[in-house]
């Protein structure tokens, strides 16, 4: 064999690729771990990687030597080789059993340590929708948001996951592994963020036409900031229109098609078919991280959502340009 591809080389390629691509944007990497679970699993990965690199290099070396050694025509070498059975015993059974035993212990230990209920957990209920995430805080009645989940740093969070439609999967690589949202059952993902930051999440189970745009983010704040965020959502703060245009927007919102699907706390719009928009102005994205939340994008989204996210269940809204601008001003003011 002239061409060898040792795992060591692969490691270099992997490391340099990660460096290379991270210059071009921030990837939600599971090895860039900021949660208790992801840190633990990243440790498991590097252990497995070291073992794998050794195994690959050694076995590939055996393959190459096995091919090369007989080709020179020195047939007497064959006589010195160990018996077939010994070779198969050692390479095919003894060595794998040792490695697998190590991995079995690691698996059991790690699994036991993760996802256990802990005292003082913050409960958050997440429902997978087509194609967005509905988020409530069961211990703070009335607080409802979508796609952008606020949590406190260093406090265990119990995310209750379910679905009332198809199966989705909740995955925030920098914080933890994934758990499916399955209709008819409630799953739990327990995680703790160890550093403040915004962590991107993705739907990881194919769920239909817009599976690609069912992203979300977890925003981990210092506990005091989080408490302030949560407290604001339990009062009427930020819900009153601050300009005439926004006031008109509220009227349009509650009387026209919007209120048929969406809710804004403290108004007559209470429908829960689409995302709750009570803190919309504070969100960074529209359409489950499809486009950044800017007034221009929002207008486009309201007028013709299919042009932004083809297949979304939101229908186009027939409003005058003035009304659209008013609704946009209203929604962007909800913080």
């Amino acid at each position, binding site marked *: *064999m002239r061409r060898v*591809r040792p795992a060591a080389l692969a490691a270099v390629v*992997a490391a340099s*690729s*990660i460096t290379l*691509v*991270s210059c071009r*944007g*921030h*990837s*939600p990497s599971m090895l860039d771990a900021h949660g208790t679970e992801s840190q*633990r*699993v990243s440790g*498991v*990965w590097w252990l*497995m990687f070291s073992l*794998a690199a050794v195994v*690959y290099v050694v076995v590939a070396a055996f*393959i190459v*030597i*096995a091919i090369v*050694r*007989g080709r020179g025509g020195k047939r007497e070498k*064959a006589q010195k*080789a160990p018996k*077939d059975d010994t*070779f*198969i015993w050692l390479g*095919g*059974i003894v060595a*794998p059993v040792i490695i*697998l035993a190590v*991995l079995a212990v690691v698996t*059991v230990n790690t*699994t036991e340590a993760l996802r256990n209920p802990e005292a003082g957990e913050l409960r958050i209920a997440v429902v997978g929708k087509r194609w967005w995430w509905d988020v409530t805080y069961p211990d703070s009645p009335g607080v409802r948001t979508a796609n952008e989940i606020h949590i406190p740093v260093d406090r265990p969070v119990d995310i209750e*996951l379910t679905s009332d*439609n*198809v199966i989705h999967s909740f*995955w925030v*690589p920098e914080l*933890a*592994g*994934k*758990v*499916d949202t*399955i*209709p*008819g*059952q409630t799953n*739990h993902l327990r995680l703790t963020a160890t550093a403040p930051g915004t962590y991107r999440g*993705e*739907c*990881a*189970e*194919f769920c239909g036409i*817009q*599976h*690609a745009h069912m992203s979300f983010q977890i925003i981990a704040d210092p506990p005091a900031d989080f408490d302030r965020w949560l407290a604001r959502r339990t009062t009427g703060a930020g819900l009153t229109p601050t300009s005439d245009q926004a006031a008109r927007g509220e009227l349009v919102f509650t009387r026209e098609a919007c209120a048929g699907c969406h809710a804004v706390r403290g108004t007559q719009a209470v429908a829960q078919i689409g995302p709750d928009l009570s803190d919309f102005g504070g969100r960074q994205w529209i359409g489950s*991280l499809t486009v950044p939340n800017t007034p221009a994008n929002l207008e486009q989204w309201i007028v013709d959502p299919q042009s932004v996210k*083809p297949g979304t269940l939101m229908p186009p809204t027939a409003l005058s340009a003035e009304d659209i601008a008013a609704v946009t001003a209203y929604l962007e003011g909800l913080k």
Partner: protein
Amino acid sequence: MAVTEHPPPPPSPPVDEPELLELWEDAPGIPGFLSTVDHKRIGMRYIYTCFFFFFVAGAMALVMRGQLAKPNADLLGPQLYNELFTMHGVTMIFLFNTPVLAGFGNYLIPLQIGTRDMAFPRMNAFSYWVFLLGGIFMYSSFFVGKIPDGGWFGYTPLVSRTFSPGLNIDFWGLGIVFTGLSTTVGSINFIVTIFKLRAPGMTLNRMPIFVWSMLVFSFMAIFAVPAVTLATGLNELDRLFGTSFFNPALGGSVLLYQHLFWFWGHPEVYILFVPATGMISQIIPTFSGRPLSGYLWVAGALVTVGFISFGVWVHHMFATGLPPVAMAFFSGASLIITIPSGVQFFAWIATMWKGRVRLTTPMLFGVGFLLIFLLGGITGVMVAVLPFDWQVTDSYFVVAHFHYVLNGAVVFPIFGAIYYWMPKMTGRMLSEKLGKLSFWVMFVGFNVTFFPMHILGFLGMPRRIYTYDNGLGWGGLNAMVSIGSAIFGLGTAITLFNWLWSRWRGVPAGDDPWDGDSLEWSTTSPPPHYNFASIPLVASRHPLWDQRPLPFAESGPEEDTSGLGSEGAVARETPVTSGIDTRPEGNLEIPHETYLPFVVALGLAALFVGLLIKAAVVGVVGVGLAVVAVLWWSWRTEEDLT
């Protein structure tokens, strides 16, 4: 034991009696095409049909890679992308990998065990027609614009009537039930053939490893396929007749579908992988010039894999919230299944180690297989580790892993097998120069395509997304993957060209171009319709290396042994032997060509079309046609026996 330097293989027994050829010849033209029951014609037909589907599915992959080559591309919309990745998976699993192995089994098993046809030649024709019509059934969705779009695995409730009301899913669900029939029928045929038609002396521990692998393939398929038939069939009942097996609102269970699907789905991986390793266990010894090391180990490993593979299905469901203790069991079983593969791996290395390797094209594909499968196996161990799987499942890491296994460790052996056995099938060699070029282009393209996918998984890229944002840093690696896929595609095209060229200009192969050890090399290339005028008498695991010249049986006066010699060939019979010690027990008559298998398959196809378009009349006519044809099939007349 065998030595590596052999004299030229023994001459084939005298044949060419025009009478014999005429007796076995199919009718010329289309009637013969539709009515043949010759396992070799059927086997090649399987292989060619499968490769047609292979290139179609490959073309779909290239289009998808075009879409993913850069962020926010708009080559494909989400609907079309979902249709393409669904049909890519469906085609590769149901219309290429599984049936192409059945095709090789069909062609090679009767030759390797020294008999004149399969045990049930008409069922053999039937299973091909079902497979072909099943493929046409699923692909007809393209002509009505209702292409399956729920993923090849079709999880409920996404594929329920509520969330996927169109015919798209019915093409998929009914198509899987229909083609599953082909696999089951074919498997029963393989098992009976292997147990009852082996040449005298070919005891179980002298069977070529490929025959062992097809035996394991068949038993696994018989137990696994009903599960997927049940999963997709119950889902179709939910869709067509409003039952609620998988509807949680009416007491059904969503996870039940996944259990049933993966109870087939994971064994299916080994259903594909086991025969691929069987091919490797033929190729490596031939080109190492010595017998396979640890024959019994390898045969034992295949059987062991067959059993363990039924205990690992839950590792596809680690993120579904099952209890950790239950998952730990499946995690353990998924680790243990590595051991039989390790045994095979070191048996191959030991074979090469003590042999003298000739790096021909089939052997290059074999070595490429070893280097690729080594990595696919290692990542397979990794995904068995429960907490790690929580991170990587449904990410591009898993896409990388299973392409290393299903593409690298199954498609590479199949390409090796094409180069190894096509000369036997067509009588012409493929070009070694083009073959080696094809291998290197495929090997480089493969790794450039699939290796970076591991890293994309770490970077958080989920599977089955039709586009991704610019700011995520996935663009560079995706561009690399797309370039690699084009290189890989080019490599496969070189082999296609090589095959076409060899049909036209290929050097005649002779009986035994590679100095092989098994019985298929003792007959002409291509073999006569009856394979062997007289049945070879086997006294070794490597008859062509150890028994020189290879002895052939004479017909005895008793009925038990009358079929062994050329009298058996004249009577269109093949000897039946006892399952363990291959004592001659009598003769099996080989039926003449007949349209009946085709008619039965057509009738069943009409049934499925009837279900699809909800036209009871079409379904009833189809069932009627099939029943009449089956009755006719079972009706034996004097004419049949002459």
